[in-house]
């Protein structure tokens, strides 16, 4: 094998004192050859990002590489002078990040941000640089380049922003492109496009790509070679087909198994009398003030659905499809403009607050972000007993039920005196679920309950939700952007786009034979479908 472009030898990176462990990365060795895509796959805290940042010399303050070498074309980056390393950044190696909204300066126009990079390394005029920038954006498949150069990041879609980031990274034809979870913040169909773009550019330019991901589907589609990381170590590495086809480490096997496969196991539920019936629900949002006419967006447009006890209905759609607004209308956090929401035949969409209050406990919700949905200053016990206490349950009884409930969701009842920040994401989501279940609801709305979680944790929480649904005979409305997740837990799915339902039916049928073009596109965009894992 020819000499690799990047050769990491026994890299050790230490964390500042007070962190949960002393070393972020311990004696990691990894090669990235010329003209190949290498994936580092792992969950949060595995050290995959730290390794990538160490190559760029961009470790956060207090995090330092304390041992080993990072050879780049033979030169050790860890021993290079800061100024020399700075000149390499952007010129020899470039990096793109997870969230393209946050990664672009919000108050500087796109053109300026791209030319800044070019002119840092090359002595050319702003005009020449701007021409180059326009050309690059065109190569990234972006349209109306002249307008884009003058636009600001917030005026672009997520996919456009990530294309701009890639254009910027490629502007000086670096030998190495590091992509740190480049598609995690994007919609599925956009994700597929961006991954294809990276693949195409890599092949055209014969460059090296180091791709950091948590998704084995992405690995299967993209990587020539893969390294699996956990707790700062590389557990195994090799060609993608070898690692995927014959994983030697049990953790790798667990990771692969945890990837939802996009095949539905659940049969459609038997048709019983529906508990929830939504008819012609419409929600519009207006912008504007005292003296200005507002613009109106129809977030949910004439949507109808039914939901029975013991059944899970998946609502699938990309950002802006109206799926979360729909959920918020069903639970009456928002007042719909038209339509009915019947709970056991009573229309709660237009009910007065006083009459609605006793019914509220029957519909509960689990939110997406387990970090912001729990009050950081209340103990777990206070959080999960607050609901029952409001409905008049004696504190003592609520407390003993809370203990049972924590056990049900797989937590030790003794955690009740602790604060939310002491828990991991998956544990917090369990707390959020326990909080919802304490009110003995009939309907549970889960709004992207696993999208902020690592894959293995995701699998556990999905299983828990399904178990709870069966045990308590819940009607569950499951909101997700991820077709694979929907396939795993939903009896029926409803695909939404621009506020409208484009297709609905039993999960099995829709996955086997989608009739709508958009549904087909969503299914085709699932990573890992090209190569079975």
């Amino acid at each position: 094998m020819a000499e690799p472009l990047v050769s990491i030898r026994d890299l050790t990176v230490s964390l500042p004192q007070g962190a949960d462990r002393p070393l972020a990365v311990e004696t990691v060795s990894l090669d990235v050859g010329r003209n190949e895509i290498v994936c580092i796959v792992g969950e949060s805290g595995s050290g995959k990002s730290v390794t990538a940042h160490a190559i760029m010399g961009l470790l956060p303050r207090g995090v330092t590489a304390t041992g080993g070498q990072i050879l780049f074309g033979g030169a050790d980056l860890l021993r290079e002078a800061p100024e020399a390393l700075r000149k390499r950044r952007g010129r020899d190696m470039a990096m793109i990040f997870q969230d393209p909204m946050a990664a672009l300066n919000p108050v500087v126009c796109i053109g300026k941000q791209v030319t800044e990079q070019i002119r840092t390394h090359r002595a050319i005029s702003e005009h020449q640089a701007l021409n180059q920038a326009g050309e690059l954006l065109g190569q990234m498949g972006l349209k109306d380049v002249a307008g884009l150069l003058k636009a600001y990041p917030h005026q672009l879609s997520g996919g456009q922003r990530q294309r701009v980031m890639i254009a910027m990274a490629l502007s000086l034809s670096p030998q190495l492109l590091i992509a740190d979870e480049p598609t995690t913040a994007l919609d599925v169909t956009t994700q597929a496009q961006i991954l294809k773009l990276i693949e195409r550019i890599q092949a055209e330019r014969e460059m090296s790509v180091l791709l950091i991901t948590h998704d084995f589907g992405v690995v299967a589609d993209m990587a020539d070679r893969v390294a699996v990381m956990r707790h700062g170590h590389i557990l195994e590495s090799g060609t993608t087909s070898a690692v995927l086809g014959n994983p030697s480490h049990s953790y790798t096997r667990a990771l692969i198994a945890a990837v939802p496969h996009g095949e539905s196991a659940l049969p459609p539920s038997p048709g019983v009398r529906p508990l929830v019936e939504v008819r012609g629900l419409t929600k519009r949002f207006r912008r504007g003030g005292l003296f200005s006419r507002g613009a109106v967006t129809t977030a949910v447009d004439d949507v109808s659905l039914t939901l029975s006890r013991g059944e899970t209905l998946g609502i699938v759609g990309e950002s802006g499809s109206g799926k979360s607004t729909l959920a918020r209308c069903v639970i009456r956090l928002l007042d719909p403009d038209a339509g009915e929401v019947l709970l056991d035949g009573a229309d709660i969409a237009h009910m007065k607050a006083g009459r609605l209050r006793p019914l509220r406990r029957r519909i509960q919700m689990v939110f997406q972000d387990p970090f912001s949905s729990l009050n950081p200053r209340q103990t777990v016990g206070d959080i999960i007993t607050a609901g029952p206490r409001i409905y008049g349950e004696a504190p003592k009884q609520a407390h003993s039920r809370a203990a049972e409930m924590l056990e049900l969701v797989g937590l030790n009842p003794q955690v009740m005196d602790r604060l939310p920040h002491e828990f991991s994401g998956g544990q917090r989501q369990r707390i959020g679920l326990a909080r919802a279940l304490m009110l003995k609801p009939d309907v549970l709305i889960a709004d992207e309950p696993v999208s902020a979680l690592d894959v293995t944790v995701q699998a556990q929480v999905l299983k828990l939700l399904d178990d709870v649904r069966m045990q308590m005979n819940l009607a569950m409305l499951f909101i997700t952007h991820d077709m694979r997740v929907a396939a795993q837990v939903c009896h029926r799915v409803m695909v939404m786009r621009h506020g409208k339902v484009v297709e609905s039916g039993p999960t099995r049928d829709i996955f086997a034979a989608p009739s709508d073009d958009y549904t087909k596109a969503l299914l085709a965009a699932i990573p890992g479908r090209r190569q079975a894992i």
Partner: protein
Amino acid sequence: MKLRYIAARLIKTVLVAIAVVVLSFFLIRLAPGDVATVMAGQSGFADEAFIKNLRAEYGLDQPLPVQFWKYASAVAQGDLGTSYVRRQKVTAIILERLPNTLLLDAFALVVAAAGGIWLGMVAARKPGSAGDSAVTVLSMLFYAVPQFWLGMMMVLVFAVWLAWLPPFGIETMGAEYTGLARLGDIAQHIILPGMTLALYFLASYARLTRTAMIEMADQDFVKTARAKGISERQVARRHILRNALLPLVTYAGLQASILVGGSVLVENVFSWPGIGTLAYEAVKARDNPVLLGIFIVTALLVSLFNLITDIAYSVADPRVELG
């Protein structure tokens, strides 16, 4: 869209002005005593007839609603009335004093913003360092010191002990400087009151800049900037500072609004012939037309500054649209 918005704001400004006229007219009269009793007291031979005559002269003997109607209709025509004490048009008096206050404000604003932002940048460069602590201590000091005391100490140290700067007024009395010499003279006079006003705000700017810069330094786009290979100086200037300055635009607008009514304390300590001293004199003399005029002009200027702040903010931050 923009013009429409600005027109709507100007209409709101007029509404504010009407509210100010009504409220202050009646509130001022809640205070006991009027200009007639004050003048009678000063003249030393206060008999009932004298006071009655004065009241009749100023129209104070008429019922309150009639007084208000007369005043309001005059204001609607742009006439703020005549000062009881100076017997001059209120508009003329305010227009004579307003430039002095605006000059002092502008000086304080520029010094506070420039000095504060610079100190904040120094502090944010290495949070927790000796330089950072020094800036924090200094800011606390400037926050905590009462302005009138600070003003007197300024006079004591720089005018009396060191004799570097003139302590009072806006220019040297009787010197009759013209042209550049006059400008230089005013510049010397503005330093002490200007610094006294500026230091409190300077401390705020320093704290705000420091916090905003530390927060911005953690943002992803700063990481992107470093990944581009830009030097640390440019990262700090073009990316961190540029974003950290956004909240300061709002604060500068707030400061301008606070100052435009004239600082009664500071202007009086330094005998600065601005709106603040005028207001103080008018209160003492119960010169209500002058006081009301100051209220109205100040309210209009505050509305105007708020509008300018909002427009400036929408220019500085492309994400924010007017409306």
